[in-house]
């Protein structure tokens, strides 16, 4: 299937879903005007990618400097799908990068790890 690449803007993240290499990455800022409009095609591509997968190693890198409340909900939905894929027999590693003095983003990474026990979540502090 075709890889998904969306360049960053000042208010939306760079999305690099390299499905061929099973590497997914989100980085930058996320406060689009309408998060559900922005994330809908991303969710659709992710669903199409994950559904047939079996026994695949997926690596997810998230390095977001800021995300608004509506984006938070969308990001949580992405991890619910990834957790379901891990439960279904895939191996998903999540590298959650955050600034060490940004408690909110670090704690959200912890919450994702607690919510999604099938994911192998690594909380990493940015230098």
């Amino acid at each position, binding site marked *: 299937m075709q890889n998904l690449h969306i360049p960053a803007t000042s208010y939306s993240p760079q999305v690099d879903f390299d499905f061929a290499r099973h590497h997914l990455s989100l980085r930058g800022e996320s406060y689009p005007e309408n998060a559900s409009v922005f994330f809908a095609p991303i969710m659709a591509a992710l669903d199409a990618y994950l559904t047939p997968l079996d026994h695949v190693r997926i690596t997810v890198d998230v390095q977001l400097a*800021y995300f608004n409340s*509506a984006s938070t909900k969308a990001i949580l939905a992405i991890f619910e799908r990834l957790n379901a894929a891990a439960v279904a027999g895939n191996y998903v590693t999540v590298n959650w990068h955050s600034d060490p003095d940004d408690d909110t983003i670090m704690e959200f990474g912890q919450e994702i790890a607690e919510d999604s026990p099938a994911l192998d979540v690594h909380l990493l502090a940015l230098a």
Partner: protein
Amino acid sequence: MSLDHFYRFQDLARQQSVVFYYTGYFSQAIVSAMGDALRQRLNQTDASNVQRRKLFSVFIEMAQNVVHYSAEHLSASDSTDQEIRRGALWVGEQNGHFYVVCANPVAREQVGRIRDKLMPLLGMSNDDIKQLYKQKLRSDNDAESKGAGLGFLTVAREATEPVEFDFIDEDGPLSPITMFYLKASI
């Protein structure tokens, strides 16, 4: 408005240590540009990194609230994207704390709904607000909300004191529109 009025306006803003003030139409492009300017302006203040992040977060939630919900719009009333709506936003500094105040017109019939969302937050501790946020984040969306329905909760979570809000009848008690004010201190 004579220049004399402008001087008084400027003087009041200076006395109140207003870091940033905007009134007029809000769109995503304006919010984003203001956000960049605010970040740069905050870099010149004594604000800690944590304060800057919280302030930026409150600013974005409030400004996007105007874009989504202000009762006075230039965009079509049923659009959900590329909206342009009227409001005002202040960022000020007071005794080492920052505050953000946002004002926008709302339909009078929305007053009850807004009050019901905000009133419970006023008496809650930071931990209670965090717990409620976690719970709401994982629940279904509010049908009338264009975002995640988490904007006010996010503002309350970032604030160091309970948020303040009010409705002011600028055009008299019979007008279908009233002005909604929301203030958070960080």
